């Protein structure tokens, strides 16, 4: 069952995102030195990292991975039982890691996965050993510092049995970067009874193209919570992460918050394949178009009886330009699946604006407050400490956006 919701009666449709000429980006970048002390990053880098949720002071963090262009500039765990290193380093350290590469993301899925395989520039390896539960999250930052380069990373994140791993990861660019291409392969493994909370904040530049290719494998009794936030202008972004629930009682929840600026093209979705009895999934998206185009996709596939899943997409148009196209898909393969969806696209109700104005807020302030409220991260169900960190990052980002 496929529902298409359009916000306009015109015949306009969103054209496919332009094909990327990978060769037009520089394959090499200037070497960056390893930083023992992350406090030595420049103030500009610090500002952009903070807006992506990555705190160079490492306050309230269990460890940090930072990659600038093609160099690992910092990788250190501050908590016993949590591992932080580059995937290239981890491959040297663990022979078994080969089994985790290209297992849930297909190597030949598209030109970007092939590119990441042919010319990999590290990526992070984050792992919680069995039973380890850290109070503070690990943080990882993939930073584009040089203009017009391509950055191909391959990340592996493993929450071993019974562990509880929180990751806050930000992707950002230096302020003078205008153009770039980021290809990020991420493979998640959430073992039996583990919990992985992964929050990604993108803080790109206006002419950067982004192609994450992400998938997760969630075992019995495990929970995978994935949050994605993109509020800053980006040229185009296309991703459709997937979680496969393969063990009884596995749970996946995707929360996505998108803000499309004029000229930005976002084609973002989340897909969950429910393969085991009693598995549960929830996909929630909030999309705001201030003149940019958004395709908000969602796909739930129930393959066994006794699963339950829900998909929700709410879109808000705050400009006469731009477009939001919600495409929720439900796919039941057997009797006894319980899947539902709701999608709504509209504009801010005039009566809400007038109500806030009657309390003394200007029209612009009222509109911004409603949009901020619409993009409320409390929908993500984050732990209190992580919620605070995410809200700080969002707040830093919003100051520039609104």
């Amino acid at each position, binding site marked *: 069952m496929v529902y298409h919701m359009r916000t306009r009666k015109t015949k306009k449709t969103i054209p496919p995102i332009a094909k990327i000429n990978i060769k037009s980006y520089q394959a090499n970048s200037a070497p960056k030195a390893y930083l023992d002390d992350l406090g030595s990053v420049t103030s500009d880098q610090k500002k952009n990292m903070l807006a992506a949720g990555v705190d160079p002071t490492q306050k309230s963090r269990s460890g940090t991975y930072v990659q600038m262009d093609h160099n690992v500039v910092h990788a250190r765990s501050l908590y016993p039982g949590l591992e932080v290193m580059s995937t290239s380093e981890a491959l040297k350290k663990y022979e078994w890691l080969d089994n985790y590469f290209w297992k849930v993301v297909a190597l030949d899925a598209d030109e970007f996965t092939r590119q990441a395989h042919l010319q990999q520039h590290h990526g992070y390896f984050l792992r919680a050993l069995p039973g380890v539960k850290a109070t503070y999250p690990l943080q990882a930052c993939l930073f584009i510092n040089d203009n017009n380069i391509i950055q191909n990373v391959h990340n592996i994140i493993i929450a071993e049995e019974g562990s509880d791993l929180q990751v806050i990861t930000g992707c950002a660019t230096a302020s003078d970067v205008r153009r770039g291409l980021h290809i990020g392969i991420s493979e998640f493994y959430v073992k039996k009874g583990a919990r992985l909370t992964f929050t990604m904040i993108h803080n790109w530049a206006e002419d950067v193209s982004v192609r994450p290719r992400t998938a997760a494998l969630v075992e019995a009794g495990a929970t995978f919570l994935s949050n994605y936030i993109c509020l800053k202008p980006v040229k185009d972004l296309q991703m459709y992460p997937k979680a496969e629930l393969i063990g009884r009682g596995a749970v996946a929840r995707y929360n996505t918050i998108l803000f499309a600026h004029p000229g930005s093209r976002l084609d973002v979705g989340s897909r969950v394949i429910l393969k085991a009895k009693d598995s549960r999934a929830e996909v929630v998206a909030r999309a705001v178009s201030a003149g940019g185009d958004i395709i908000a996709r969602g796909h739930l596939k129930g393959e066994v009886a006794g699963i339950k899943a829900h998909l929700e997409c709410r879109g808000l148009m705050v400009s006469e330009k731009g477009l939001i196209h919600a495409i929720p898909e439900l796919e039941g393969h057997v009797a006894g699946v319980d899947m539902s969806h709701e999608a709504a696209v509209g504009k801010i*109700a005039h009566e809400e604006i007038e109500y*806030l*104005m*009657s309390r*003394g807020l200007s029209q612009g302030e009222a509109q911004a*407050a409603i949009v901020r*409220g619409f993009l409320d991260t409390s929908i993500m169900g984050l732990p209190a400490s992580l919620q605070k960190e995410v809200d700080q990052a969002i707040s830093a980002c919003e100051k520039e956006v609104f």
Partner: protein
Amino acid sequence: MLKIENLTVKVADKEVLSDINMQLKPGEQMALLGPNGSGKTSLLMTIIGFANYQITRGDIIFKGKRINELSIDQRARLGIGVMFQRPPTVRGIKLRQMIQLISKDKFNTDKEASLLNLKDFLGRDLNLGFSGGEIKRSELLQLLAVAPNLCLFDEPESGVDLENIALVGKLINRILQKNKDNASLIITHTGYILDYVQADRGCILVGGKLHCMGNPKEILETVKKHGYEWCITCAREKPKKQYHQSRK
């Protein structure tokens, strides 16, 4: 404080208020009565400046300034506040955030919310799933935070159980007593709120026209005894602006 002169208002080409004249002195509280659809809420919405209510004739003067052309927020910042009867739900904005956005000076949100039995609602989306009584208390909490000089109360007792009407009345008095010059226009159907809030004058709005003005208790007594139908007949028979005298 407020002067309304020859005010005529349209909503989507339909005249809802016709040639309204009214004056509120500083510190004066006026009860506004009238049957359903008579234009009471329209008058309040016009004073605050909602876009659907188009002034076709007349003036609204507040604190000596003609405010016809001012935006809603400009009027609010001048000191006009509304307690809405049915405010919209605003998803994503918590009551606490709203109070932070609008409050003047130092406002102790937690303390005031506790006094209004609203502490548990501070973290909830504005008006989402609030009962009638909770909406009233939330509206009053917001007015306490804004501290307006002219308060427009749209049926403050509707949907509130008898026990809580006293609380609503007490809060209205608190808002009004913040400044001795604070004035108000109180729409009431039942008049229950007038047992707790002292109105200086009352008036009846019928068919978009203001006809009677006088002692609020007397007017209310007449309405209770004879109903609005009698008022409508009375309004037709008596010349405009004549002070009402109840029929014994």
